[in-house]
């Protein structure tokens, strides 16, 4: 015979929704019994109306009383990734004009800068309901992007040619001239970025003999006239001018499209002009020494603070990780690191994709400097320090040991990797 045993403490926690362990206990109860009802302390069946039913696809709670879905309780349903609600599809069959956008497509995907520029193109195309325009995107080489329709693209010119792959500004310019000849867009938009847009946009403007607006950061509309505001003189001045045909826009120049889906209808070009002389030969990307990369630009930084005792080990770890080295002010003041490696308010503001802070407590002056880092990893022996609170991953323990283990792990993976290649 099985005895039902009560655990008054767990039951108490289950009733108390504000208890810190509530979610955990409910999850356990979830596994054992029905989560939405349980036996109260004095034998009464208790129901939690908040835990009945599950979230519907559009964010509304749905209670199923037919018992069909009884197995799937709210607790698990709510945590599931919500299906993306279907956005309305906009089709533009007969556009009055075309706004062409040439996104950078870094790594074969639309960058956030590209999406901002597409948002700007949308503004231009949709401004006048009497004269509806269409947004045309031009994509060179292969791509991995799967969300073109969510970025506000009505038409897509996809130029698949292995010679257009990678850096090939002259060939790309020729193709853009073909598009100009055949479709004659009302405007040409480029992201004004080092990833290629800045160069290609200027090349095309010069070829078309159009004076472009560069470093555009916002569109202004004055009684049906488009104007734009541009940054000039290297960030020192703002220039307001009428909007020309060719526009090179900065990041955050407009809100990216978020409300609707668009058609992404492929457009074929009928003719291509004969190729002109190619004067630039791309010999490919060069391996760079991470230590030579300026700290503000580095993608991956290993940063050491007062908690680092063995600096040789630290330098070795940076070498093995192929990471740029950074430091807290204390490490610099104590003479372990050069001044130009200091991260923080009075040092360099970094924007690394991954920032590993070793033995750094996370003083506000330091945290300010790493505001723009994507992922922060803390290695610290004090679990309560501010760096651990900021970190996306914190390892509580001795810095030296963790670094050593990390270096060993990487060496091991590297040798496995080379074995693989040899085999």
């Amino acid at each position, binding site marked *: 015979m099985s005895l039902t045993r009560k655990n008054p403490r767990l039951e108490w926690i289950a009733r108390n929704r504000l208890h810190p362990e509530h979610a955990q206990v409910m999850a356990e109860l979830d596994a054992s019994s029905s989560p939405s009802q349980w036996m109260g302390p004095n034998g009464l069946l208790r129901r939690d109306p908040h835990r009945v039913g599950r979230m519907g696809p559009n*964010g509304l709670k749905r209670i199923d009383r037919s018992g069909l879905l009884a197995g799937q309780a709210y607790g698990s349903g709510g945590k599931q990734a919500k299906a993306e609600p279907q956005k309305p599809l906009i089709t533009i069959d007969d556009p009055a004009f075309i706004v062409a956008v040439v996104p950078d497509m870094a790594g074969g995907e639309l960058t956030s800068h590209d999406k901002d520029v597409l948002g700007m193109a949308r503004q231009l195309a949709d401004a006048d309901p009497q004269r509806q325009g269409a947004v045309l995107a031009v994509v060179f080489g292969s791509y991995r992007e799967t969300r073109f329709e969510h970025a506000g693209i009505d038409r897509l010119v996809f130029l698949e040619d292995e010679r257009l792959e990678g*850096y090939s500004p002259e060939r790309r310019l020729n193709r853009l001239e073909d598009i100009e000849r055949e479709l004659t867009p009302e405007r040409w938009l480029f992201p004004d970025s*080092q990833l290629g847009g*800045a*160069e290609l946009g*200027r*090349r095309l*403007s*010069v070829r078309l003999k159009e004076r472009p607006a560069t470093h555009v950061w916002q569109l202004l509309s004055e009684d049906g006239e488009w104007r734009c505001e541009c940054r*000039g*003189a*290297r960030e*020192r*001045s*703002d*220039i*307001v*001018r*009428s909007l020309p045909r060719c526009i090179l826009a900065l990041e955050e120049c407009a*809100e990216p499209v*978020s*409300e609707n889906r668009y058609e992404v209808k492929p457009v074929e070009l009928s003719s291509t002009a004969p190729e002109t002389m190619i*004067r*630039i*030969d*791309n*010999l490919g*990307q*060069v391996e*760079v020494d991470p230590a*030579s990369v*300026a700290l503000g*630009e580095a*993608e*991956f930084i290993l940063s050491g603070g007062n908690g680092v005792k063995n600096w040789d080990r630290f330098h070795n770890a940076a070498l093995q990780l*192929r*990471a740029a080295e950074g430091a807290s002010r204390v490490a610099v003041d104590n003479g372990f690191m050069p001044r130009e490696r200091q991260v923080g308010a009075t040092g360099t503001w970094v924007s690394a*994709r*991954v920032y*590993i802070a070793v033995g750094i407590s996370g003083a506000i002056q330091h945290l300010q400097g790493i505001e723009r880092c994507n*992922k*922060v*990893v803390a*290695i610290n022996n004090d*679990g309560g320090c501010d760096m651990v*609170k*900021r970190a*996306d*991953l*914190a*390892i*509580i*323990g001795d810095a030296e040991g*963790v670094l050593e*283990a*990390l270096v060993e*792990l*990487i060496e091991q*993976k*590297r040798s496995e990797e080379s074995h693989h290649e040899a085999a």
Partner: protein
Amino acid sequence: MKPRESDKKSASLSISVLVSTGRHPITGRPGRADQDSRAVELAMNLQGGSVSLLHAGQPTEECKEALRGYLGMGIDRISLIEQSEHADITEVLTKTLKSSNPSLVLAGTQAEQGEGSGLLPFLLAESLGWSLVSGLVSIESVENGQATILQALPRGQRRRLKVRLPAIATVDESAERARQSAFGPARRGTIETISEASHIDETLASFEIKKARVRPKRLKIVKSSSARDRFKAAAAKSGGGGGQVLSDVSAQEGAEAIFKLLQEENVLKL
């Protein structure tokens, strides 16, 4: 001083550097423009090259003072093509370069004064029919009418290109920092003025130019049809928290966790 790179072969390579005037970032006093001085540095480090500096603009005292900054780097003379205010200098520079016919023209990416659109090198390359490269950081070699150069990419990465000469190159701000400008040479050098007719840039007059203002920060707007989501997003605490904390783990386990994150973020080169 560290040894200058001396093994760069370039027999009688003539280089023109287009220099503009800049301002000291803090004091605002007239001086060298940062990117242009890097271009001069690059040209001076190329062995066997003959370097000439070219500026087109108003021959004011302030302008000459700024140009002396380049002379102070150890340059003997600068050609100053006299132009009136608001002149479009494309045509006159095209003419000058056509007659001096250098193999390589260096310029900054973006001027520190005026529109700063970074368009001039492109216009010159188009009108002269020369090659154009952007974001130059160093010149590796010049052989058989071709230059092998390194181009700057974001995040400190580099790309190697081979370019047919004559070429116009814009110099990136990550190119080697320019040497100090010394007072003596700056005084001794000569500024040679050449007068030329100016073409006034008419379009510029229609521009409304003002001091740069702070760009508004983008707000996080949550668009959702359900009020519940909007409320949740608005009430959510920003920043902090939510990170994974591993305490009481061995060093090896900690290292594994970090390794996993590094691989996910694709920053580790094995």
